[in-house]
């Protein structure tokens, strides 16, 4: 065997040695558990100088992520080596950078624990982020026009001084876009994201006036907005039997808007922004929530950063007008959610197959699958959770690992049928059948998500250790069973319990219950004990069911028995 002689090398080998040394310097390992406290809050809310506003680009992020980012990926040797390592089975996926010892996302300016962690009532789910409703009893004043985007609208201030962005449905699909906006907003809110307040409102069209100085552009020239302009904007809007105009009212967020945040990199002028966005768990896992809603237009331009009064930047997700069956003022195309707008994977197969390969979305006439105009094109049958993509590639979504997906899937699965109904009803669809269709489709898509992702990884969670005397009990929840995805009778758990010191208490012990109780040996002379459960779920007929979850239980006199770490095998 040839051994590298570090002391007798040729001058030419010095750079190579330096490179090796540099590369070695990058190696690091960390303990899978902590005997201290688990970080559940990422302190990224320190006061910072107010940054400037970032420009919002409608085309650049799409072009960049669709073309340049795809070219760049194979040029990043980190990614190439990692891919090769995964292929050879000697390296794992690049995991998110902001996960704690419980494999969870800490709360931050991006995310807060909500429905999965602390189940919300139906009233809380229906209310979502909303704190105020637009006052429709008094006069509204338009203070700015919004003519760009898929459907025009305006900015109005109600008689109580609250300011809202007012948007309308497209003429051919009344109630579609506005209901999608509200439902999508509330689901994302319950999943833990920061979102703007959004509500459906019906206002008297005669109680709106155009303020002085509101300008619109016509033929390249600016002029004062007139009452006729306002009438033209609302002429296509849906109305109720009293003639009130249906609209989406999005309340101005508190703080100073700073433009969108990106799905990649960090913001250089925000010292709190330390984790690359493409490596944030809550953004990677958002892909699963977006897939549930067919949130196809998720991209930089549909996000918002706000400088709060406490002096830090909060990160919001917004613009849900392309969720469910809506695609702006119109309906989704069948291809949406199944392939990118430009998708070389399918283009190559089409070209090489001489057209004989017919993609599943190709021979679908969307109009034949629209049960109600207010629902648009939103189906569960063609939905493939593992293949879902947004219209444009998103680096964070591309980086999603199985663990990120599991995190996203358990957020989705936390919505019960009744939870979904409570949220859908806030879309105020006038057709009861449309409500039923939407609820049912969301339920079916939710269950597909659970069925797919919970089959890829061991879906046990919510661990609770308890020590009584020399008995150690570990309780947990099998999310697959809890959500009715898997049959409890077909499931058994095999676990091994050892101490980190090597004491074996149980080896390959089988249990058909999600509660393990074992007798611990006499205590050693140690302040802190750490016990390790290695749990495998045995599920009949389900691929990858035998993935392992390792749970570390920490015990000491001062803080008692607790979970110190969780590791999930992918």
């Amino acid at each position, binding site marked *: 065997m040839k051994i590298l002689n570090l002391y007798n090398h040729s001058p030419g080998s010095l750079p190579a040695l330096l490179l090796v040394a540099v590369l070695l310097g*990058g190696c690091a390992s960390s303990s899978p558990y902590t005997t201290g406290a688990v970080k559940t*809050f990422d302190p990224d809310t320190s006061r910072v100088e107010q940054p400037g506003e970032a420009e919002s680009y409608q085309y650049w992020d799409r072009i960049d992520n669709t073309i340049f980012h795809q070219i760049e990926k194979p040029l990043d040797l980190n990614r190439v080596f990692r891919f090769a390592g995964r292929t050879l089975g000697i390296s794992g996926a690049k995991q998110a950078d902001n996960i704690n010892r419980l494999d969870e996302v*800490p709360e931050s300016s991006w995310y807060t624990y909500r429905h999965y962690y602390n189940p919300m009532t139906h009233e809380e789910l229906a209310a979502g982020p909303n704190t105020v409703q637009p006052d429709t009893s008094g006069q509204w004043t338009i203070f700015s026009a919004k003519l760009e985007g898929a459907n025009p609208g305006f900015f109005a201030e109600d008689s109580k001084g609250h300011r809202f962005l007012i948007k309308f449905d497209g003429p051919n699909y009344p109630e579609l876009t506005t209901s999608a906006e509200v439902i999508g907003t509330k689901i994302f809110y319950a999943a833990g994201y920061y979102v703007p307040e959004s509500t459906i409102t019906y206002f008297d069209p005669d109680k709106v006036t155009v303020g002085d100085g509101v300008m619109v552009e016509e033929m390249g020239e600016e002029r004062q907005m007139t009452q006729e302009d306002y009438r033209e904007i609302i002429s296509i809007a849906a109305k109720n039997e009293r003639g009130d105009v249906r609209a989406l009212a999005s309340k101005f967020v508190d703080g100073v808007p700073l433009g969108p945040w990106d799905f990649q990199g960090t913001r250089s002028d925000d010292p709190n922004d330390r984790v690359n966005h493409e490596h944030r768990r809550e953004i990677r896992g958002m892909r699963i929530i977006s897939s549930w809603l067919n949130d196809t237009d998720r991209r930089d331009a549909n996000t918002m950063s706000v400088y709060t009064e406490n002096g830090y930047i909060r990160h919001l997700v917004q613009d849900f007008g392309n969720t469910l069956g809506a695609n702006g003022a119109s309906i989704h195309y069948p291809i949406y959610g199944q392939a990118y707008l430009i998708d070389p994977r399918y283009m190559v197969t089409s070209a090489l197959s001489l057209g004989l390969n017919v993609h599943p979305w190709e021979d679908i006439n969307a109009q034949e699958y629209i049960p109600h105009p207010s629902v648009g094109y939103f189906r569960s049958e063609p939905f493939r959770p593992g293949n879902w993509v947004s219209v444009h590639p998103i680096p964070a979504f591309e980086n999603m690992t199985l663990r990120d997906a599991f995190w996203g899937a358990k957020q989705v699965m936390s919505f019960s049928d009744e939870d979904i109904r409570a949220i859908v009803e806030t879309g105020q669809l006038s057709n009861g059948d449309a409500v039923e269709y939407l609820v049912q489709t969301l339920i079916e898509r939710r269950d597909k998500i659970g069925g797919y992702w919970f089959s890829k990884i061991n879906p046990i969670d919510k661990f609770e250790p308890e020590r009584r005397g020399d008995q150690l009990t570990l309780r947990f929840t099998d999310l697959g069973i809890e959500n009715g995805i898997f049959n409890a009778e077909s499931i058994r758990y095999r676990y091994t319990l050892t101490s980190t010191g090597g004491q074996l208490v149980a080896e390959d012990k089988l249990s058909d219950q999600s509660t393990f109780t074992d007798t611990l040996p006499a205590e050693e002379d140690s302040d802190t004990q750490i016990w390790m459960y290695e749990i495998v779920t045995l599920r009949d007929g389900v691929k990858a069911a035998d993935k392992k979850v390792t749970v570390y239980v920490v015990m000491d006199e001062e803080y008692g028995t607790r979970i110190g770490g969780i590791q999930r095998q992918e």
Partner: protein
Amino acid sequence: MIFQRTCKLLALFLFSTAGVNMTVAASHNFSFTMQEAPVRTDTSSSEPTPYSSKKSVGGHLLSLPSYLFQWSISPIGYAIKKAETTVLPYLLEGERGDYGVFPLFELGGDTGYSYGLLLFHNRPFYPNHSARVEALFSSSDYNDIDFEYTINRFLSDRGRLVFDAAFANRPDRTFLFGNDASFSDRTFYDRQDFEAALSYSYSLSDRTFLSFNTDYLRRKITRSDRVTEDNTPAFPSEFLVKNALLSTGVNLAIDNARGIPRINRGSRFITDLQWSRSLTDDQFNYINYSAEWNQFIPIPFLPDDRRLAFKGEIQKVESLGDKEIPFFENPSLGSSRDLRGFSTNRFRDTGSLLFTLEYRYPIWDFSDVVLFVDEGQVFNHYSDIGINDFHTSYGFGFHLISTKGFAFRSEFAFSRETSRFILLISPNF
């Protein structure tokens, strides 16, 4: 075994380098429960910060190629961002005014590149009028200026009057004559044209169109410098002419082709008859007639956008009395729309016959792949047409499809003699 282990360690070393270090800070303030699980949690906002994306020096080195790529495209990103706030809304979001100016660029051709302007006005004088000027400049040898004025709903809601005037000088046109002419016998000429045309089109129905036209063409044929440079045979001196021609004719089109944005079924017939004579003398007097048939057929058992497209076209020119026909008015084959794999005007005679079959199928909603074969021959008399006299060209291409239909094509065509790369905004058929 040792070797395997060494490899695995080396690989692990590389892959761990590709990773990102995560540090967890010592905790400060404790609580005892998090959600349902008994957990010691730290929700403090005190430093040191627990989470960040850190890349080792080695990781940065491995990312160096991607950094260089990012740096290299930064001007493109800057340009697109700049365009978004200035040009793109004007071009893409329906805010284009009634008049404007656009730059034009043309790559390829004899002179490499040319540049110019497009000026348009969509309602000069009256709402139903439109005007446009395209001008391309390259060198004193190659210029192209085209002016078009259109009056829609002229005399009738179904009528349209178009006046078109153009000046062009283009060097190095290829000259060969006959179906069996050898490629090595080719020679070259230069030409300079001024053309003015007036045409009136009338829609007999939604699918039947009749048009009448009168053209004035002044053309000058001169020797090409390339004859000397390439040592090719001399251009026939009797074809060096400077003449003015007046033509008048009628065109009938029946368009039953259907499908938007992709034509996938139906047929199209186009017939044309022109009478021309020279104005400056009585040397030329002839008629020119042609017939074209297009048929579109979807492939059974597949979606309709997998389709065959067929074109058959015959052209013939006949002299009247004992008068002559200018050589450039004889039909020729070898262009971007017929016998595409041969050089321009490769075959020329008083008649031409062409068959084209294309298989068009989508690879995406905005792009088709096209596989094609062209078969064509030129002839002097109809009796000269022979099954063994066809020349074959074949190839493939990509068509861009807009929501309204065909937008752009790039094709690679081949033949036994040469090949051609085509980039055009006009369809073959």
